[in-house]
């Protein structure tokens, strides 16, 4: 084809910016060490709750999002940018569009991570998984993401390569889709610099959150990594990519289908059945497009398997791609209702995500680092032996992590569901099911320690490599400029051949990708609005009292929802254990929804009025006094700290703006009501010998817990 030769154009000289790549690589190493260490800590806290050192800043609920944010957005995020900045420049034969934007992007992203590391332990959180950061940081993320987008598209525009390689397609899909996801899931109404409420409530909020949560996995942990795979795997293997046609098919179908599958996180929930079914069927259809990536990766090594034996980088990559294939098969299986009924809320899901995180993201990142760092520092890897050791201990680590977690997930699920011949629960005491899997949790930590040990060995190896090498920030390159006003020969043949056309038109390509992603997005978003009218209203469901609202925010601050669900599913084993199953109409005033995604502790949807106030007081102060052997940490500061009621007015106003029917002017008298209710609870406790005043945080939390799930009971007794 004529467009490939341009011999009459003179070569242009330019430099690749390697300094920015190196900076991101350093960030990967630092944040990986931090994020995984926090992971080890929270894994230990599940066995020994006192490992928060009785500090509110280090309880499981507050630092679990620190772990997830650090490994997803800091470790994986920086790895994406490291690989993207390296490969994009070379695939475009151009320096990054703007050094300034590169720097803003780098430092802006690190600032976001630091802000996350500060605010999350302080309990400043939206409670929405993988989107916990509060609104000012959300805005900062948006700005930094736009900076990245400008920098990336700017580079693509001034490229010296006519066609965009498949890696770039994945980068484009990533950048535009993450922007859409982030913005729509972060629509929230601020009441102060550190507190906001999502505009969605209940079922609607749940659907938007898991549309986001699912696609954060898709477009932050998957598509950019496929882009990286398409560059670094053939580079490391020195083999051509197996199938260009497969790239086309699996790229377009992957980004099209992925966006639909979010509701599979809400099977058997109060979400309408048809939305749940959509989640299931699109997850099933996702197998082939996901495996397209795996096949193309593995078959690229066809004829080069002898290299895999000797080349540790390829070993890492092969395990990564295989783990990707396993996780993307398991995901659709977990979306089948009968499998989900067992696996949801258990450790099975933790195992599943760690196959993806440790295997796919972790190992691909390590492979890339071992390939890239010696290249950047123009030297050989310091020690192949250490890298091999890292590979094996990391691999064993993944097995020691995942197998016990699968085991424990199934064990606990079966214990939850078992009945005696007399028709009562065989394990009525939830704690019993938790203590049963303690050993599995211990083995899991061993797996984590192995994996971490491998990571530390890699750090040493890379630092030694860096020390022995010499870094050059500006790598000279040359390429002919693209001819302008070229007339191309028309492409004859199938659409597959015509795809070549759009590969040289980044603008049209991006528009098409956005459309393909938005089809699913829109059809999923439209229901979120339809759902509002699709929810049968329950007359007895009333807005929270001001004290309960404050208590709810303490529940959010302490992230109780990271261990306790508020979603009784329609199973006999759950309604017998907890009470009536969750109805969509119960959550209409819940900004945000607090259904949770994991039951490390029992469900709390019907907790209200189950136990007296005194029980809750003693339980919060030290759970083991009323529940011997409990693995919940103490929340003793709740009885010390004074509830901040200065923001009650703002909270009531915000809720009213969002559609919660508080009467006009109620905000002025809200605190009177609040104090009255608080005094009643305090009086009840004092009567039973507890020395507590009505202004403490624990009073508000008790008020909220006693309200939970009771509105529907009122309706039943009313009848």
């Amino acid at each position: 084809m004529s467009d490939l030769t341009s011999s009459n154009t003179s070569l242009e000289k330019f430099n690749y910016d390697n300094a920015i790549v190196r900076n991101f690589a350093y960030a990967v190493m630092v944040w990986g060490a931090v994020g995984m260490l926090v992971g080890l800590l929270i894994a230990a806290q599940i066995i020994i709750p006192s490992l928060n050192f009785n500090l509110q800043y280090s309880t499981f609920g507050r630092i679990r999002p620190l772990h997830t944010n650090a490994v997803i957005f800091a470790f994986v995020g920086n790895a994406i940018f490291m690989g993207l900045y390296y490969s994009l420049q070379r695939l475009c034969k151009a320096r990054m569009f703007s050094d300034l934007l590169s720097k803003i992007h780098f430092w802006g992203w690190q600032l976001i991570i630091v802000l996350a590391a500060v605010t999350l332990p302080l309990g400043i959180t939206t409670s929405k998984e993988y989107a916990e950061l509060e609104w000012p940081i959300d805005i900062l993320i948006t700005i930094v993401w736009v900076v990245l987008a400008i920098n990336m598209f700017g580079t693509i525009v001034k490229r010296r390569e006519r066609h965009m390689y498949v890696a770039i397609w994945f980068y484009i899909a990533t950048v535009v889709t993450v922007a859409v996801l982030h913005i729509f899931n972060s629509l929230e109404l601020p009441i102060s610099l550190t507190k906001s409420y999502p505009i969605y409530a209940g079922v609607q909020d749940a659907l938007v959150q898991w549309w986001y949560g699912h696609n954060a996995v898709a477009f932050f942990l998957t598509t950019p990594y496929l882009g990286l795979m398409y560059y670094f795997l053939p580079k490391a293997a020195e083999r051509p990519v197996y199938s260009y046609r497969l790239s086309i098919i699996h790229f377009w179908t992957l980004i099209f289908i992925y966006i639909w599958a979010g509701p599979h996180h809400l099977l058997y929930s109060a979400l309408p059945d048809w939305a749940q079914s959509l989640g299931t069927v699109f997850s099933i259809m996702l197998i082939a497009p996901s495996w397209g990536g795996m096949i193309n990766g593995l078959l690229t090594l066809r004829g080069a398997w002898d290299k895999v034996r000797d080349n540790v980088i390829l070993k890492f990559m092969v395990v990564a791609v295989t783990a990707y294939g396993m996780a993307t098969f398991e995901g659709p299986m977990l979306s089948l209702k009968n499998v989900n009924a067992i696996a949801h809320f258990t450790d099975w899901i933790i195992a599943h995500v760690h196959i993806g995180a440790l295997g796919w993201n972790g190992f691909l990142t390590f492979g890339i680092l071992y390939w890239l760092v010696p290249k950047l520092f123009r030297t050989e890897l310091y020690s192949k032996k250490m890298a091999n050791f890292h590979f094996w201990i990391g691999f064993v680590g993944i097995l020691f992590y995942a197998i016990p977690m699968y085991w424990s997930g199934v064990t606990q699920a079966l214990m939850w569901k078992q009945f005696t011949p007399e028709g009562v629960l065989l394990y009525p005491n939830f704690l019993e099911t938790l203590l049963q899997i303690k050993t599995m949790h211990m083995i899991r930590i061993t797996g984590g320690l192995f994996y971490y040990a491998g990571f530390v060995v890699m750090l040493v190896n890379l630092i030694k490599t860096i020390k022995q090498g010499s870094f050059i920030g500006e790598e000279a390159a040359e390429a002919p400029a693209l001819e302008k006003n070229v007339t191309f020969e028309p492409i004859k043949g199938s659409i597959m051949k015509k795809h070549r056309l759009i590969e040289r038109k980044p603008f049209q390509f991006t528009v098409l990708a956005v459309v393909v992603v938005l089809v699913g997005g829109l059809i999923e978003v439209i229901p979120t609005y339809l759902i509002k009218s699709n929810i049968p209203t329950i007359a007895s469901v009333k807005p929270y009292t001001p004290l309960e609202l404050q208590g709810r925010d303490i529940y959010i601050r302490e992230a109780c929802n990271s261990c306790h669900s508020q979603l009784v599913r329609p199973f006999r084993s759950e309604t017998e254990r907890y009470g009536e199953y969750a109805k969509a109409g119960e959550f209409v005033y819940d900004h945000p929804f607090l259904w949770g995604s994991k039951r490390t502790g029992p469900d709390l949807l019907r907790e209200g009025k189950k136990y007296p106030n005194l029980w809750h007081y003693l339980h919060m102060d030290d759970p083991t006094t009323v529940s011997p052997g409990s693995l919940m940490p103490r929340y003793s500061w709740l009885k010390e700290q004074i509830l901040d009621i200065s923001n009650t007015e703002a909270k009531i106003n915000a809720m009213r703006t969002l559609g919660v029917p508080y009467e006009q002017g109620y905000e002025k008298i809200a605190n009177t009501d609040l104090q009255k209710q608080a005094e009643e609870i305090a009086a009840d406790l004092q009567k039973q010998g507890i020395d507590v005043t009505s202004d403490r945080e624990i009073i508000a939390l008790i008020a909220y817990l006693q309200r939970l799930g009771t509105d529907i009971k009122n309706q039943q007794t009313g009848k």
Partner: protein
Amino acid sequence: MNKKVLAAMTAAGITALTQVQAIAQVKQETHTDTYVYLILGALLFTLAVLFASIMIFESGERKPKKAAAATATVETPILTDHEYDGIQELDNPAPAWFQFLFYITIAAAVVYMFVYHVSGRQNSSVDEYIQEMTVAQAQKDELIKTGALINENNASVLTDAADLEKGKEIFTANCVNCHAADGGGTVGPNLTDDYWIHGGGIKNVFSTIKYGVPAKGMITWQNQLNPKQIQQVASYVLTFKGTKPAAPKAPEGTIWVDSTAAPKDTLKK
């Protein structure tokens, strides 16, 4: 423009039309499930487009490949003229099993949506639940009929040491939080004295344990303990009478007189 593209577009168009019609009909009926049909229609349309596009992607390439395979040696990879920073791309077709897998999953999706939302079968989550509960209730009824279940009307005091030992175990696991290990009471009332809030005697105690007194914080135990267990723990509770707990809570309720036993005694006198 090849025929297949035209055919696919026509198919998509027809699907869209039927969908619009379906919506129109649904609106006339003002059916509550309008949204379900709307979504289903959109879904079918999307699937049709998806299927058609895969067919189109593949159609042009399969035939020449077969022709090429006949003439050229199969082992020689077909290299495209693409080259990016030293990375080349082969022009292999997607493996046949991969495409087969894809078609199967798309077909499975259509069948799934049909079975769950069009066929009219009762298989929503709540339907499943009702089914499950019906079966459980039938089993329970059977047990009651055969007299295998003990209830508050027929419970008697167990005096067997093994039963009381079981009762003690249950008490230790579930009751000591509120009633203390020696029955002296903390959150809950003292069980060692003659005063009972909800009536003494095996039947009342059985009933209080079984149904609980949620307003006062005594939870319902019938979903967690089987009747035998309730009988055992109730019998154990009655053995506290007259013991001296370490920190007895003040009496609550009224003195319990066994009305069934007392008249008999007076008669004897």
